[in-house]
């Protein structure tokens, strides 16, 4: 089976550690993923803002990059949802029947990470170790567009050392919503404030979710409030082991990295 990693544009530029975690995790489970270098973005930011014409070349680039793969794995419920449910709209808009066929063929091969692990690899215990108190936020698109159900939870429950606590009003949107976060920033912030409050109420050290875009929003709220809770992508927790857990959960160490990057710049 040829498996491709769709890392997503936001993870590529902003959260590469999530992509690295997916590679490490799948490699540990015996799956070597390809990273088709021609990939860019699923086009969702454009589609959801109403720019269908602008999304056409982006979706075309997507279809070309991932053609021929049996499975396309992505650490994002939202981007998986876009590939499965929105690419058809964009392709129809293009008026190009070949693109319509191409995206129709690729749609069912797209898997959000937890779907790929549970449904394709049929594992829930991925051999992870993460000795922290964690709460899980089910992001809207994975919950309602994809229907990932309890897969992420089952994966987390199998992690050694973890203490999983319930998030109140977990199914309510965090208020990110792509360009909604800036076009309607007051409402977005009001929603995010409630989500951040619920997260803090759990007493968890870490908020985990399957979408870094939502985590960027909630984490940005928690950070501004000095909330004392850090956010992590599901892939990073599942990739953690006894050997790596210290490295990937220590804020101190990341601060050191920042310093060393700054030195590089000097």
């Amino acid at each position, binding site marked *: 089976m040829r498996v491709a990693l769709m890392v997503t544009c936001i993870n590529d530029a902003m959260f590469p550690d999530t992509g690295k975690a997916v590679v490490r995790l799948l490699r540990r489970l015996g799956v070597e993923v390809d990273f088709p270098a021609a990939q860019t973005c699923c086009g969702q930011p454009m589609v959801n803002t*109403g720019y269908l014409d602008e*999304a056409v070349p982006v979706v075309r680039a997507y279809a070309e990059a991932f053609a021929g793969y049996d499975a396309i794995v992505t650490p994002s419920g939202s981007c998986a949802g876009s590939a499965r449910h929105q690419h058809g709209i964009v392709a129809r808009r293009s008026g190009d029947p070949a693109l319509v066929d191409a995206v129709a063929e690729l749609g069912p091969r797209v898997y959000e990470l937890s779907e790929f692990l549970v449904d394709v690899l049929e594992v829930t215990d991925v051999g992870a170790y993460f000795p922290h108190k964690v709460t899980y936020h089910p992001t809207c698109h994975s919950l309602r567009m994809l229907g990932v159900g309890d897969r992420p939870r089952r994966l987390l429950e199998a992690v050694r050392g973890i203490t999983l606590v319930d998030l109140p009003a977990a199914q309510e949107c965090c208020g990110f919503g792509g360009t909604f976060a800036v076009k309607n*920033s007051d409402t977005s912030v009001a929603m995010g404030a409630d989500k951040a409050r619920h997260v803090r109420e759990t007493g968890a050290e870490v908020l985990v979710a399957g979408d870094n875009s939502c985590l960027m929003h909630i984490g940005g709220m928690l950070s501004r409030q000095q909330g004392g809770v850090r956010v992590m992508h599901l892939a990073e927790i599942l990739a953690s082991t006894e050997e790596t857990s210290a490295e990937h959960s220590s804020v101190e160490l990341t601060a050191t990295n920042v310093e060393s*990057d*700054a030195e*590089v710049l000097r």
Partner: protein
Amino acid sequence: MSGTFVGMPVFPSAARTALADTQLRHNLAHATSTIRGKRSRLVEEVDESIGGDDSGWERLRLAGAAVKESALRDLDRHLVALEEALTARGATVHWARDAAEANAIVVSVAKAHQADEVVKVKSMVTQEIGLNEALEAEGVLAWETDLAELIVQLGDDLPSHILVPAIHRNRAEIREIFLRRMKDVGRPAPADLTDEPAVLAGAAREHLREKFLRAKVAVSGANFAVADTGTLVVVESEGNGRMCLTLPEVLVSVVGIEKVVPTWEMLDPLLRLLPRSSTGERMNPYTSTWTGVTPGDGPQEVHVVLLDNGRTRALADEVGRQALRCIRCSACLNVCPVYERTGGHAYGSVYPGPIGAILNPLLRGTGDPQTDSLPYASSLCGACFEACPVRIDIPEVLVHLRAKVVDGHRGDRVPKAEAVAMRAAEFALSDARRLGWAERASGVAGRVAGRFGRRALPGGRRSLSRVPGGSAWTSARDLPAPATESFRTWWKRTDGGREETR
């Protein structure tokens, strides 16, 4: 009388005002969480009582959606059948292209009976067409008899919810409105009025009873209009509907053409879906059905106004058409995280919430800034679609309407900054090499930002609390600095991590 929505600001500005109203936020959070709990318990009960492998509620939704969809796709035939059945049973059928025509018909019926007042059953469509104002301009007073409508009318207020137009008011505010205003328009509220809901409801009963007993003309809408029999259906709770539909001599019902249900039997799934989705009850206290005139029982003169007012425009939209399936239950409002925080007034229409965000542009057409702001008033979380009893894919229609809004500006001589940004993104994202260059530039920015960032943000980097041009984000949220090395650069440098050295 109550105000109008004319000249409302665009959604983000209206929302900002509403978000600052802490009383409103509290009232809405309390009311919507109550109703959400009731609804979800009943959905579970239906799943249990129907049984089987698939969700019973989902199968009921599918049936309800199909009934409405089948009516819409054959609407001309059903409308003609409805007219024929109604006429055969002694009703007078009128057709109205728009609000002005519908209002003129109702005014002329009232005038024909020298009525200087009418009693009204709660009806969204008469709100939509501004009937009360039109009647008042002709010297006919329209009394709203639904409790929430009465609260809105007495308070010179605007409706903010489809089912409970006064949802933004709590009991203390309602008591104050009753004490202050009832005396101006009829029987005063008792001086010792408390804010107990039962006491407030009792005051409304006393106040309105004299109006019910003396009114000659009543005005209603209809929840459903059965084409094959000519039967109209009104679903209600308080009995004010029954009063209006039964006691006056003349009844005028204004019915949107999308209310058609093909056959009597097809009412079944809708009558099971509506009360559970709207008030969270197995059945609403009262449902009245009538077919034209019944000799010796109820109004002996019955008029039905079939109204278009933009519905055929919505019908012509192949994606948006599904919005006409709406049965006005307001479940989408009650589950919407945006509505819960902004309330209904921010939508600038009698149809607020997720359904309003699609229905208003579909009925009116896109093109004015207020209407065009509505499809963006959603985070696309999908809770509305999940709750909708007739499976209107509201997020799908929202995205479709956003494209219509954008397409409406494609000819602009000076493109919006957003359009310019989207075209730049298109350029970068349609070619991985160009994206790589952009990322290298942002990586440099990330290194610079990392040096000046204030706090460590999870995910591995410093966070930024101010970004030039990014205040819509950073006014309340930190933003992670871009990564110093993109994933694609890392992959290339380390051969996918295989050559990574620590």
